[in-house]
């Protein structure tokens, strides 16, 4: 408790701290929201990539699959999102990129740069969860999950 700075503070000061943290909390919600979303998307790419091995595994297709699997974590978020444009409405993909941009601005705030398009937390949640919803319902990925 001592480390929270609330202990020993006057009531008004503590109230101001609580409000300050509440005011910032909404924006910072977007950081973990994005982190969860960003970890979820590659799972579907892995499912799609594993189709390479649904044919008889050979040295070649195993190596190709391994390369994709190993390097996927280095792919840029925008590039990963673009892969889903054939499944998810491109406007929604565009919105997700804006969420990422806003998330980056929150996490690495540069006071010299104007703020990018703001994302209310509820809207960020809606955009990202709707994308996951559409992807999960896609027949190609459903099938792949069933046969994997």
């Amino acid at each position, binding site marked *: 408790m001592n480390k929270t700075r609330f202990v020993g503070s006057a009531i008004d000061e503590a109230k101001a701290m609580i*409000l300050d943290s509440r*005011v910032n909390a909404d924006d910072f919600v977007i950081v973990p929201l994005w982190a969860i979303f960003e970890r979820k998307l590659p799972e579907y790419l892995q499912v799609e990539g594993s189709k390479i091995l649904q044919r008889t595994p050979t040295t070649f297709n195993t190596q190709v699959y391994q390369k994709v699997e190993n390097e996927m974590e280095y792919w840029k978020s925008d590039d990963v999102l673009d892969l889903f444009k054939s499944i998810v409405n491109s*406007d929604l993909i565009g*919105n997700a990129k804006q969420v990422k941009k806003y998330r980056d601005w929150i996490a690495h705030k540069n006071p010299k740069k*104007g703020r*990018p*398009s*703001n994302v*209310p937390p509820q809207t960020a949640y*809606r955009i990202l969860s709707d994308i996951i919803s559409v992807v999960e319902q896609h027949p190609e990925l459903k099938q792949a999950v069933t046969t994997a």
Partner: protein
Amino acid sequence: MNENAAGKVSSFVDSVDRLFAEIESWIASTNLKRIQQEIEISEEASGKYKVNKLTLQDEDGKKIAEFLPVGTFIIGGNGRIDLNGTIDKAIIVNLKTGGPSMTTTTAVGDHAETRTTSFYEGINQQGWYWIEDRRRGKANFFTKDLFVELLREVSDHELS
């Protein structure tokens, strides 16, 4: 600032001023005082521009709440104002009729079906809305009753 951005900023500033005028009419017969101050907002798409914020104080001059414009370039909306109280905050967003939506196209047999789903329910007109946290997806038009309710929530203040 390009023309499109300038037009958007101008609409936002106007809609903020109209909202504040409404709020002032709601508190006219109460003991709350209101102070409007000009602030500067900097957004990547527009650069810097000026808009008013509205502070509400009780009869002793103690701040009860503040309506702080955040910006006009909002994903899924035309503008955002944060209602910052003494214990909590509420986000108010300016939405067009219907609000933001998502269109999905699914292959059904040999044809494609397109469906448009709104992010939020209850957006029957353009204006300022509060999106509920508890009931996800419910948008509430910013009326006097909602203003009174939110003031209670963010500042534990009963309008009298």
